[in-house]
């Protein structure tokens, strides 16, 4: 991800809201669970203000370097900045919300 791309999307920050990217490696159970969990959480808490991009590293391994991906699955919050990463199958909704700064710590 280049800095230029980030700048472009900054102005559209408010309209697009949450730009999320989920890294997976093939259709593993963990990846499927993570995607399902993510979709549910976003629909519940960020209705209409999010976009999810799924990157399959088995298809595009070179993309792993950009976001420094080690663990699979990894969810990256590209926007709003700063970049946040959540790893795991996102089964703990509370922690996902805290991790994405959707909900402050109780």
């Amino acid at each position, binding site marked *: 991800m280049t800095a230029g791309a980030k700048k472009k999307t900054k102005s559209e920050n408010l309209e697009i809201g949450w730009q999320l990217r989920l*890294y997976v*490696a093939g259709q*593993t159970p*963990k990846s499927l*669970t*993570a995607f399902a969990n993510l979709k549910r959480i976003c629909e519940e808490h960020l209705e209409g203000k999010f976009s999810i991009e799924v990157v399959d*590293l*088995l298809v595009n*391994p*070179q993309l*792993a*370097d950009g976001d*420094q*991906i*080690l*663990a*699979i*699955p*990894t969810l990256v919050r590209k926007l709003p900045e*700063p*970049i*946040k*990463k*959540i*790893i*795991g*199958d*996102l*089964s*703990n909704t509370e*922690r*996902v919300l*805290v*991790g994405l700064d959707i909900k402050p710590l109780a």
Partner: protein
Amino acid sequence: MAKTNKHVKQLEALQKCPTGIKGLDEITGGGLPQGRPTLVCGGTGCGKTLLTMEFLIRGATEFGEPGVYISFEEKTEELTKNFASLGFDLNALAVDKKIVLNYIHIDRSEIEETGEYDLEGLFIRIGHAIDSIGAKRVALDTVEALFSGFSNEVILRAELRRLFGFLKLKGVTAVITGEQGEKSLTRFGLEEYVADCVIFLNHKVDQQIATRRMRIVKYRGSAHGTNEYPFLIDEQGFSVMPISSIGLDHAASSERVSSGIPRLDTMLGEKGYFRGSSILVTGTAGTGKSSMAAHFIDAACRRGERCLYFAFEESRNQIIRNMRSIGIDLEQWVNKGLLEFRNSRPSLYGLEMHLVTMHKAIEAFKPTIVVVDPISNLVAAASEMEVKSMLSRLIDFLKMKGITAFCTDLTSVVSSLERTDIGISSLMDTWLLLQVIEGSGERNRGLYILKSRGMEHSNQVREYRLTDNGAILQDVYVGSGGVLTGAGRVAQEAKEKGETLERNQEIERKQRDIERRKAVIEAQIEALRTSFEAEKDDLERAIAREKLHQQVLSEESQSMARSRKADKQQPQKGKAIKTGKKVGK
């Protein structure tokens, strides 16, 4: 050994991946296990990163095996800069697709963990890097950083196990580094997973001098050196000094080289030292050890040989100046490129560093004679045992190369002169002892040959004198007055000379006496003979007179007989025959 194994049973024996690092391939018997992971562990700053990087670089440049360097700690730009200072151009290698540098950033603060995950992303990245250049070698430095990035240790450990399996599957020879733990080899127990080969690096500081050491903790399926091997890092990278790699199978030359002092050669069986032997000169301060070395060098340079002088006490210029005072011009040989000085303080760096710099200097200059002046000073840099081990390796190395080693050793006055401080006498082939002989208010130098292997040598002490025209050896006075040297010897010699002169005069006098007596006696004999002659004359005259008288008488009687007509006398027959016989005989 490993090499022959490789040839004989290629299928069964473990394949080795040469590191190209000086010495390491010797102690591992050919390199790291091919296609398996090796753990390199040690404390901070012990050279783990350098070892792994050099493994990759040498693999890429010398063995045609591209490598992937995965760094968890240093960014690629930093790495490139660090290694540029060691003369490795990582950028050029990266451009040539010989090396891939990959920095994996782990920041705990950015990562939130929820639920199950694995490290497939890391695998994919490593796999991608390997595939992109067809790498055969991989370095992970240090994979322990993962422990700071992920809190779920159960997953992490399972994934690490899987990672090493993955690397084996990829068929790459991997080097993984690990930080030394308090009780275990690595802080996070990586040795559990990497079970094939473990190398431990150690950086110990003793008396403010640091020495790096390396040990092969384990090497599955292969024999390996088990000792702690000193190693060092310099501008050419890593080098390990295997102690055991030098054996006692060097050739022994029977060629002789002159010591540069004619009478010393005479003492050493008329010819001097053996080429390629080790010579030790011990003595207390100011006994002329360096001067003896200078003579040896001077003689060698005159023959056109190359000499390397390691000086641990004096500077180059100081040695040249001092030797000029005994009529030896070393500067001309320096200018001709036959002589080179390497001056350094013993405490400048550790013994091993000394050894390696000496090795390098010897390899570069290719001398036939090496002087170490003095070896005793090295003790300042390390313990006695270490010095002994270092010197034995140095001398073995020199012997292997057929280089004549000339070492001087300063002994203290208090201790026994025949005991060198370092106890290395057993390593030496020829041992000369310079001793101060005190007497008649002077200190003079005496030289003995304590031993000289394989040659007849003098058992006599000689006086060793340094003159304007070089060192000379002289007989000492050994007599009823004890051993005398210097002025005492001169006085004694003068005295003896006087005594001899006196004795000679006495003999001459006596001889003259004899002559005189002989003359007197001869004169007497002459006088006697003269008187005898006179008497003889008289007597003969008297005899003649008597005879005449007798004749006259007989004639008178005959004439008287004739006149009386007496019988003719018959001659007697028998008597005449007898007489004739006698005459015939």
